[in-house]
């Protein structure tokens, strides 16, 4: 069994119990790997891979032990089933927009059609409350900047003459702005 970085989330504890049950019955055990983690005002933000394999296709995102996201390749009952791999793309640790921190995620898959997929934001409050934003489609890397205390998300399309598109993070949502840079 593989445990990395030594932190057991609530689901990991269940997996550990389940794995022990499987071990004593002689079956293979599940591996769970923490891929990324970050300390936030509300506690640890953790991305965990729960399937086996060199790359992984099923993931959870937890904040202080609470499930924020479950994604599994091809499972339409989960979010981002075509882009199941969450990556913490950026993190803003200062208070803005009514929250104490903002985490920016980009979803990936392992295929080569797109170098990175949808982007979504997570607003985090010190008291443990959180709010997930809507997602914006990407097929490539995003750009984030802060202007006058507001986070801007910018999408430039490779090979396209059209100007970049821009969203602002406000009220827990990503809102498209009419004109970009």
């Amino acid at each position, binding site marked *: 069994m593989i445990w990395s970085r030594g932190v057991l989330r609530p689901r990991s504890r269940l997996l550990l119990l389940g794995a022990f049950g499987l071990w004593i019955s002689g079956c293979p055990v599940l591996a769970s790997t923490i891929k990324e983690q970050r300390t936030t005002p509300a506690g640890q933000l953790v991305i965990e891979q729960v399937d086996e394999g*060199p790359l992984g296709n099923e993931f959870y995102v937890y904040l202080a032990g609470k499930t924020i996201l479950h994604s599994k390749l091809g499972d339409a009952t989960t979010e981002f089933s075509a882009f199941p791999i969450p990556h913490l793309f950026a993190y803003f640790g200062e208070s803005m927009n009514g929250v104490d921190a903002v985490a920016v995620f980009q979803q990936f898959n392992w295929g*080569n059609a797109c*170098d990175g997929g949808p982007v979504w934001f997570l607003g985090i409050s010190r008291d443990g409350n959180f709010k997930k934003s809507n997602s914006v*489609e990407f*097929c490539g890397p995003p750009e984030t900047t802060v202007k006058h205390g507001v986070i801007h998300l910018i999408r430039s399309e490779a*090979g396209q003459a059209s100007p970049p598109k821009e969203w602002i993070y406000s009220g827990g949502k990503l809102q498209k702005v009419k004109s970009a840079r």
Partner: protein
Amino acid sequence: MIQFMPRTAEGLGTSSGALAAMTAVDQLDFVQKYLSPFRGKLHSLSDLYMAILFPVAVAKPDDFVLFSMNINPIAFRQNEGLDLNGDGKITKLEAASKVQAMLTEGLRPGNIG
């Protein structure tokens, strides 16, 4: 060899730059590692190609839409060359047809060996 994306290469324990500097034979170790989770699931050339291009389409029917101008326009435009009939949708069949044509050509007498 199969144009790994940078994060994919990293997940396999290497990098795009390192792969580019390898011989095709050396890259095969990473191709094998990449494809290992699909063991037993790739029953056609199109499924093999989907594992490389857009894994959610593995084992899906040929008319499965990978990208659509209406639903995911950014991904569609990045892969627009695969929309063979120009209907604004890229199906699994369309995406795999170029690979199939290359295989057919490669299997012609005189091209084997």
